[in-house]
Each structure stands twice: as structure tokens, then as C-alpha cells.
């Protein structure tokens, strides 16, 4: 997993390695400084030797400056490596996602992809930056401090060496106990947040049923549970600091005792026992090394915690990076679509291999180029599924779909999708001007072409009435145009591709019937050679089509024109009756 992620490091790998090297330098300086300070005190102050003090002082200043330089350099390099890594991760994921087919997107769901690109990257970036700074720094401090302690006296080293496993054991035990509690609390947190969310979104329901107190009680219960879980967890964690401090005190006392023993030899300041010399200054610095060792143990555990905490994020990012696009360009692809004819031959389709039943079953269709085709059926009858196979947004499970008499799987994807233009049911505009949005259809479209497409889609009028015309800024999600306007803009955008096949998936549901009719009329007159597939709820939208496909439960149950279907298709008649009786604007 980590190896997959590290592949994204690329040009910042050097910075990362340098950060670690520079950090080692800084640690070296930081280890030398207490030792030199000890010398300053031992030899300078004990003997009142001013020149020595000045000289050692200068050395110390040098050390400090070098340490500062290393430290600052490390900060710069570390920041570069960390943020660069995040940039590459984001970029790699985003590029990968662009290669995803609809099936891949469905598998992840958009909200989870967004979380991976945002929050998860931030988490991994933080863990990575911390790791390259700390991962080298803390073990190095540990090693250097142990070396220096040994240098002062191996007995001190033994004491510290004994303390390290004690501390690590304590961390592990506490961590094991607390981790499950924290996981539980996080789940409850989610529930608490869900409670608040439901109340904020549903405040009208809460207020109209006068359930304020009821909701308050519910909330209190959850927040009470969080309280008691957290208290339990924190009470376990309360052992951490005392254990740390306790260990360090014991170490101090042990070192002091041993030290005193060592020092008290022949004279008050130095002593030599078994070839070891210890001074008061050194005793002092031995103690500060002890503290450093403890601190680095703490630091190490922090790094481990950070990595564990970001493990979930890492896993989620890896999933994206490792996901294989379900649809790829064929080798030696067909680069031109001959015409707009469409054939479905024995098509079966399921969204996933594990699906219990086919979403499309046994579909055979023959649609001549230039035909206008209506598709009718209730929710869940797989109308959308059917048309999504044409621009190869999904691949058939069995059978074959052809456009222009060539299997869609043989085409170059871009060629196919440029020839088959589709207006999705969930039609979206993006932040930017109307012109920018329309140019999605054709980047190099001239203003004249844009106007022409808008005339066809009956949106020229309302655009002309907008303050900035084609330069009117569309807010995110297209929130500043009405539903009907948005649908018409999406149709214009699709038309700009000058497609051979145009698919409208319930794309005029919010457009009034008169305008709807006008759009259909101009389709007939202006783009007669384009095959038009229209999914609709309203019978009126498909009534005049050359052929109407009636779908039910994943099957094509009938194909024919309006009159033929009225004569023989019960489902079609039922839909027709419900709309005419219901007076859906069509009775007249």
C-alpha cells in the first residue's frame, strides 16, 4: 500500500531524502550542544576560566547556527516534499478518475471520490510530512543520545536501555485498550452529527410536529453516551503521562545514584572507576540525554499514531490509484462513425457481475439512421440503462451494440462519444459563463454555431434576455437558471457536437409543452439526418416519433408508432390513459 503511494512522490523524492539527511544533521548538532554546554560548565566555570568560556561559547554559537540552518533547511525541504507529494497524489488520482468509466464511478460513488481527493489527501500529507521530519529525527535522537550516554558512562546507558522497552510496552498496552473505545466513539460521533443534520434539514418537520423536546432528549442521550465513552478512554489515557514521568524520575534517580557513586572517587569533580570519567557537568548532560531519549520515545509513538490514523485514508487513496478502468480504448480503433444507425443484438446487461438479475434482458433493436425514436416506461424499467450502452458508457454483458454498423467496442472512445451525444437525466452545468458551458460541446465552436445550437434548443430567447447574454455567469450547479432553462442549455451543449446520434434522457421534463414541441419540430427540420432517441415521461414528447420503444422491467415489450401501440400495447395505453385522465396538460 505504502509503496503504491510513494510512487507518486516522483520529483519530490529528492527533497524527502534530503529532509531526512538534513534532519540527521540537526539532530547531531542538538546532541553535541548539551555535551558542549557540559564542557563549558565543567571546565569553564569550575575553573573560572573566562577565555575558555568565550572560546566554548563561540563553538556553541557555531553549533546553534549550524543547527538553525539545518533546521530551517529541513523545514523548507520537508514542506516542499510534503506538499509536493500531496499535489502529485491529488493529480494522479484525478487523472486516474478521468480514465474511469461509469461503472468505476458507480462503484465508488461521487461523494466518496470527493472525500478521497480532499480530506484523505490532507490526512496523508500531514502524516507524510510528520513522518519525514520525525521518522528520522526521533530514532536518530534516540541513537545519538544513547551513544552519548554510553560515552559518558555505560552504566547510564544500561539504565536508559532498560527504560525504553518499559515505555514501549506501556504505549502498546494503553493503545490496545483505548483504540477500540475511540473507534466506538467515532461511530457515535457520526450519529450525533447525523442527529444534528436531520434536525437542521428537517427543522420544519420538527417544529410542525412540536417535537423540540423529543429531539432534545434524543440528542442528550447520544451526547451522554459520547461523554461516558470518552471519559472511559481518557481515564485509560491518564496513565500515559504518569508512566512517562515516573519512568523519567526513576531514571534520574538511578543515574544520580550511580553518578554520585562514580564521581565520589578521589576528588569532588572527576573520578575514574573502571576507566570511566564522570564530572558534574557530564552528569547534568547525561540527565538531559535521558530526557531526550524519553522525548523521542514519545515522538516515535506520535508518528506511529499518525500513521495508524491515516491508514484508512491511505487505503482509500490506493483504491483509486489501483482501480482499473472498466472500459479502455481498443487496439487499432475505428476512427470514423459512418452513420447514425443503431443495432442491439441479443443484449443482456447487468451493472455488476454479482447482480442477481439482468438490468436489460434480451434486447434486439434495429434503428435506422436519422430516425426519431421515443422510449417510454415506468421508473426502473431500464430506459436509461438501454441508451447508456450506445456511447459505450457501459459495456454489454452479452450480445452486441453497434453504431453505424460497427460494434461500439471497436471504436476509438473519443470518436464514438463525439458522434453519439447524450443529454443525461441528471443534467449539470458548471460554474462559468454560458458560452464556456456550451463550448463543452465543441471547444472551437464559433459564436454563430453557438447561436444556432441555442436556436435549435429554444434557449436563444432567454439568453438574450439575460443581462450579460452569452457571458452570463452560471453559478455552481447552475443554480441561477430555472430547471427548464438548464435542460435547454444542456440540449444546446449536446447539439454543438453535431452528433450523428442524439440521446435525450428525460431532458425536457421541466420544459413547458409548447417549447418542447418547438424543439422537436426544429430537430425534425434542421437535423433530419441525426438519429434522435428521446426518453420521456410525457406521451406528448414521443407521440410523433417514427418508432416508440416501450420498456418494462428491463425488457423491450413493444416497438411501434403511436397508433400501432395504442392498438396493441396495454402498458402504453395505461400510461396514455393516466396522463390524459390526469390532465397532464395534454388532454386538450
Amino acid at each position: 500500500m505504502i509503496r503504491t503511494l510513494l510512487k507518486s512522490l516522483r520529483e519530490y523524492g529528492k527533497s524527502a531524502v534530503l529532509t531526512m539527511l538534513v534532519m540527521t544533521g540537526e539532530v547531531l548538532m542538538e546532541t553535541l550542544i548539551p555535551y558542549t554546554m557540559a564542557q563549558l560548565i565543567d571546565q569553564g566555570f569550575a575553573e573560572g576560566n573566562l577565555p575558555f568560556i568565550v572560546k566554548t561559547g563561540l563553538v556553541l554559537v557555531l553549533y546553534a547556527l549550524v543547527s538553525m540552518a539545518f533546521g530551517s533547511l529541513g523545514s523548507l525541504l520537508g514542506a516542499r516534499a510534503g506538499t509536493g507529494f500531496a499535489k502529485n497524489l491529488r493529480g494522479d488520482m484525478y487523472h486516474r478518475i478521468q480514465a474511469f468509466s461509469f461503472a468505476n464511478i458507480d462503484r465508488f460513488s461521487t461523494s466518496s471520490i470527493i472525500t478521497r481527493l480532499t480530506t484523505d489527501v490532507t490526512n496523508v500529507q500531514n502524516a507524510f510530512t510528520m513522518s519525514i521530519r520525525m521518522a528520522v529525527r526521533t530514532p536518530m535522537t534516540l541513537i545519538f543520545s544513547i551513544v552519548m550516554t554510553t560515552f559518558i558512562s555505560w552504566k547510564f546507558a544500561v539504565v536508559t536501555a532498560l527504560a525504553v522497552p518499559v515505555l514501549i510496552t506501556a504505549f502498546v498496552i494503553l493503545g490496545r485498550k483505548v483504540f477500540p473505545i475511540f473507534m466506538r466513539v467515532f461511530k457515535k460521533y457520526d450519529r450525533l452529527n447525523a442527529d444534528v443534520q436531520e434536525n437542521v434539514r428537517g427543522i420544519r418537520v420538527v417544529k410542525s410536529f412540536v417535537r423540540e423536546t423529543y429531539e432534545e432528549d434524543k440528542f442528550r442521550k447520544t451526547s451522554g453516551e459520547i461523554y461516558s465513552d470518552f471519559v472511559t478512554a481518557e481515564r485509560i489515557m491518564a496513565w500515559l503521562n504518569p508512566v512517562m514521568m515516573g519512568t523519567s524520575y526513576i531514571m534520574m534517580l538511578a543515574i544520580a545514584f550511580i553518578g554520585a557513586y562514580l564521581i565520589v572517587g578521589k576528588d569532588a569533580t572527576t573520578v575514574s572507576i573502571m576507566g570511566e570519567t564522570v564530572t558534574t557537568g557530564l552528569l547534568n548532560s547525561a540527565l538531559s540525554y535521558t530526557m531526550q531519549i524519553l522525548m523521542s520515545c514519545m515522538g516515535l509513538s506520535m508518528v506511529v499514531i499518525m500513521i495508524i490514523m491515516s491508514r484508512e485514508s491511505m487505503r482509500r487513496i490506493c483504491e483509486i490509484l489501483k482501480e482499473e478502468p472498466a472500459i479502455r480504448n481498443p487496439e487499432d480503433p475505428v476512427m470514423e462513425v459512418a452513420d447514425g444507425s443503431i443495432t442491439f443484438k441479443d443484449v443482456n446487461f447487468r451493472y455488476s457481475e454479482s447482480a442477481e438479475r439482468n438490468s436489460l434482458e434480451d434486447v434486439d433493436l434495429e434503428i435506422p439512421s436519422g430516425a426519431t425514436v421515443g422510449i417510454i416506461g415506468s421508473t426502473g424499467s431500464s430506459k436509461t440503462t438501454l441508451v447508456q450502452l450506445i456511447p459505450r458508457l457501459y459495456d454489454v454483458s452479452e450480445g452486441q451494440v453497434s453504431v453505424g454498423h460497427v460494434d461500439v467496442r471497436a471504436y476509438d472512445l473519443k470518436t464514438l462519444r463525439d458522434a453519439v451525444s447524450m443529454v443525461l437525466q441528471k443534467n449539470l452545468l458548471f460554474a462559468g459563463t454560458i458560452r464556456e458551458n456550451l463550448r463543452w460541446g465543441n471547444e472551437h465552436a464559433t459564436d454563430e454555431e453557438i447561436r444556432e445550437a441555442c436556436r435549435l434548443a429554444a434557449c436563444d430567447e432567454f439568453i438574450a434576455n439575460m443581462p450579460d447574454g452569452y457571458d452570463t455567469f452560471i453559478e455552481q450547479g447552475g443554480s441561477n437558471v430555472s430547471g427548464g432553462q438548464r435542460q435547454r442549455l444542456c440540449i444546446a451543449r449536446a447539439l454543438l457536437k453535431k452528433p450523428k446520434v442524439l440521446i435525450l434522457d428525460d431532458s425536457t421534463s421541466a420544459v413547458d409543452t409548447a417549447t418542447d414541441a418547438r424543439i422537436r419540430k426544429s430537430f425534425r427540420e434542421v437535423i433530419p439526418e441525426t438519429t434522435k432517441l428521446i426518453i420521456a415521461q410525457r406521451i406528448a414528447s414521443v407521440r410523433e416519433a417514427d418508432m416508440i420503444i416501450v420498456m418494462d422491467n428491463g425488457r423491450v415489450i413493444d416497438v411501434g408508432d403511436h397508433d400501432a401501440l395504442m392498438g396493441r400495447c396495454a402498458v402504453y395505453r395505461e400510461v396514455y390513459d393516466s396522463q390524459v385522465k390526469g390532465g397532464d396538460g395534454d388532454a386538450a
Partner: protein
Amino acid sequence: MRHEQSEPVLTSVERRYGSSEHSKELQRRGAVGRGARGMRMAGQKLDVGVLKRAVAYLFRYKARCALAVVCMLVNAGVSVVAARFIGTLIDDYIAPMAAGAVDVPVLLSYILRLAAVFAVGVAAMFINSRSFAKVTQGILRDIRNDMFAHMETLPVRYFDSNTFGDIMSHYTNDTDTLRQLISQTIPNMFSAAVSMTATLVTMLLTSVWLTLFVIVFIVLMTMVTTRIGGASGRYFVAQQRKLGALNGFIEEMINGQKVVKVFNHEEKAMEEFDEANESLFGAARKANAFGALMGPIMNNMGHLQYVLIAVLGAMFVSLGLQNLTITGIAALTLGNVVAFLQLSRNFTQTVNNIAQQMSAIVMAMAGAKRVFDLMDEAPEVNEGAVTLVNSTEEDGVIRESEARTGTWAWKVRIGGETVYIPLKGDVRMSHVDFGYVPEKEVLHDITLYAEPGQKVAFVGATGAGKTTITNLINRFYDIQNGDITYDGIPVRDIRKEDLRRSLGMVLQDVNLFSGTIRENIRYGKLEATDEEVEAAAKLANAHDFITRLPEGYDTVIDGSGSSLSQGQRQLISIARAAIADPPVMILDEATSSIDTRTEAIVQRGMDSLMEGRTVFVIAHRLSTVRNADVIMVLEHGTIIERGTHDQLIAAKGKYYRLYTGAFELE
């Protein structure tokens, strides 16, 4: 370290997403990670009022807080002993031992005594952490509960005028910063202050001159750190802005990923993304670098200070300068200088510590302020005194009843007398004007009446004011001019709880709550039996599909009800309204996303719900209003046509044109 003054060039992504509300919401929600805190920090000042209120929460746990203070003092004392122990060890034990004046057992007993002191310190620390856990978590719980309880009292206006993300962030980000403030920052500051004072006094006892030097040095250090802090703050703001823009882009583009695919827009999307990503990297790198610089610079300035004092002190001694202490003038010895060195080091570290905590405090204060701001929002006005009571009627005289009788009456006090008016469901509006903001009136001179059992329908384009009218009857909003009465009583005089209990609502955005289907239906009447729940579900046409679910009525749904279809959710919400059985219903029916066959089922549910009640219905499909007693056609907040279906069709006006599909409704 000069920062760039010129306005940086914006990428196309930043231009489009940079300033949008949306990216701000993302930041609040915490999607951008910890950096967001740095951003809020900029320009915030310490607010004493906020601090006081935060401390007031601490005071709810007086005993534990007192215990914490004691423990911290004990701990501070122990650390002073710990800091001084080497000196004592050398002066009082090692030196005398060397001189043969003291024995090993004496040393041992000293070490054991120390061990006892340290044990007390560790114990104090342990007791403190364990006991304080209840304080921090307790305060958090209190704040959450208080916040939520208060939020429930706020008027609908508050929820309409604040973004969802904004309200949510009170419970997430803001509470989280507050937690840090209470559990870490305040205790740390307290113990830092204690040890700083102790150290300062000891330093002054050793040498005033050297102490002054230390203070000058610290001022210098603060100046340097403020500079770095300022630069890093600026870059953090830039980083947050770019991150917000990129996240906004990501959110929109990923949501529209299928459109991207259909239009072969992948290349272009990657290009734009890369550009924005690169630009974010530039800012993030600087922000992080400056943030990380603080540590090494502070640390090593501390080392420099150490050296300077050592040299200065040694010079003092060798030149034999007079030393001033707060207790008088005495000679400065080398031993004094060595002791001072250690003290000054501790002192500087503590100051650095506090400096770093300061930024945390400022950030937490900002969070706390937002929390308290929510708690300070004015609750709904509820001055009505008329209440709804169970009633019995004997010989034309209505009496109040303790038991649930199934009939209700309004209890009105006029003068000293109590009058009971039976609940019927007669709603009238006369000459009502209303605007969400005073400057912009959205309803003009609305007059209408609905007698008990009548069905009033509103028809009109989005934004014509249909929903607004229904918001006034139950007093989600209060009117500026005119009168609204319920059974002849001005709604302003009715206690809000009772008014709303007498009005049922089915809204177009179906909001269900996490829990079982049974619980969701029972929401309308908490004491309802299982039979009543099922009866309501049957009435709403929901019983069939519910029993077909694997767990039936005990199927757990989450708030968004993602496991159910739109139509099924609507049916549950109809059952929920049905079980409450109010005399007046407001139906804002949204069936645009439901196909016609499902709609027919929902419609049947709605129809049975309407029977025998006064109903206000906002119709999206005109088929549902045909049999209304009166249809109001609204345009720009004015009723432009009114009458029955046949009358309006005959009039060949707006309604006729809507009905024949010549206009867009949505």
C-alpha cells in the same frame, strides 16, 4: 523573507470557485483539514467576554477544578525540586562525600526521600488526568446539549438564512477547538504561568541584571517569531483560499464526472485541475515551510541566549561587578551563574510554550465565539396564551377534560373569564403582506378563507409565493400587515405549540429521521400504538410496501432514507401526518421526480389524508387541484385568479394556459 505584496495571478479555477459560498462551506466543514484554523486566526483578538463564558462552564465543575489546581501546584513544586536536585546532590552530598563527611547510606536516604517526593508528583499528575477527563468531556457535553437545546428554539428564519454547513460546523469544528482550549490550552497556560512566576522569582533572587538581559532577549525573540508567524499566517490564508477553490472545483467536476465523460472533456478537466493544483502547491509549500521554521529558530535562539548568559555571567564574575538581586546586593559567584543558566533556559522554554499556546487560544476563542453566538440567537417569539385542550361537550356546554377525548377546544381567557371554542379548522387570511426581509415584500394583500373541510389549492410558477403562504399559517414566519385567524382566534394569540399541533404538514422535501419506519410514523403521535401506526400507514397507502420490506415496520432507515425510493419516503411522511390527525393539513406535494404510475399511488394516499379536513395544497400537477373548492393562481406574490376548476377554465386566463401546458411550472 519578504512576502509578495502584489495580488497573485488567479488560475481559471480560482476565478470561478475562489470566492464562492460553497468553498467556504467546504472549509468550515473541515474538508480542508487543519489549515482552516490558521485562517480564522488572522485578525482575531482575544475576547474577554467569550473567555468569561468559557470559564463559567469550567466553574460548573468547581470541586474537580479545585482538585486540578491543587494537583498542578503539587506537580509544579515537584518539578522545581526535580530541577534543583542535581545542584543539591552535588553541593550537599557528592562534595561532602568526597570530603568523607557523608556516607553512602545518607545519599541513599536522600535519594529515597526524593523518590517519595517524585511519587507524590506522579500521583498528583495521575489523579489530575483522571479527574479532569470528566471536566473536559462534561463541559463538551454541556455545551453541545445547551447549543442543541437552544437551536431547537430558534425560528425557522435562522435555518433558512444560515447555510447548512455553517450550522453544522458549530457542532464539529468549533466544538473541537473549544475542546482543545479546555482540555489542553487552559491547563497548560495555568501551569506555565505558575512555573514562569516561580522561575522568574528565583531568577530575580539570583541576579537582576542577568534577568533583565533574559527579558530583553525574549522581547527580541518574540519580535522575530511574530514576523515569521505573520508571514506564515498570510501564506496560510492564501493556501486556504486556493485549497477552497480547488475543492470547489473537485466537488463540482466529480459530481459532473459523467457529463465530463459524455463530452470527452477529460483532457480539459485535467488541464484545469493541474493548473489549480500547481498553484495550490506553491502556496501550501510556503505556508508549511514558514509554519515549520518556528521550531528550529526558537530552539536555537534559546541556545544562543544560553551562551550569551554564560559568557556575560562569567565576565561579571571575573570583573567582580556588583550583583543586584531583589534581596539586596551580593557578590555573583560562578555557582550562581550555573544555576541561573538552567533557570533562564526553563524560563525561555515556558515563554515559547505560552507563545505557541496563544495562537491556539485565539483560534479556540473564535470557535467559542461562534458557539456562543448561536446560543445568543433570539429564540422564537411565543407570546400566545390561547391553548389547545381536550374537551367534552354536554348540552352545548364545552368543558375541559383531563383525559384524551378525541375532541379539542381552544381555551381562551377574556378578561377574567375562560371561554372554550371548539377546534374546527377554519382558517382566514385578510390583507396579508409579507416579506422575508422588510425591504422586499413577496406577498401582497393576500385574502382568502378556508371553511372547515374545504380544500384550497395554490397554483403558480416557482417563486410565486405558494410555499410562503403556508409558512405564515403555522407561524414559521410572522406577517408584516394583515390578519390570520384560526377558528376566529388571531394566530398570534395562540401558543405556538398548540397552533402547530392543530396543523399537519407534508412537505416536498421529505425529511425522515434515522430509526425504524415505525418510529418515523410514530413521530406524528408519540404515544400511538402499533395498531394506530399500521392504520395510518394503510390510510397513506404505505402499508403494502412496508410489509414487503424484509424487516417490515422495523426496517431501519437513515435520515436521507437512501434505501427507500422517493415515492416510498413521501408515503411514510404522509402516514406520519395522518397519525397526528390534525383538523387542518398543509400539503406541499412534490411529485415531479416521481413517474406517473408511482404518483398515482402517492396521490391516493394524499387523497385519503385530505378527507374531512381543511386542506391547503400546493399543486405541482394540475390534475390534483381539479376537485379543490377553490384554486388560487399566484403570480409574483399576488393572487391573480381564483375560483373552481371549471370557472377558471371558462375564464381562459392564466390558469387555462397553465392547464393546457403553454407555460412552464417549474
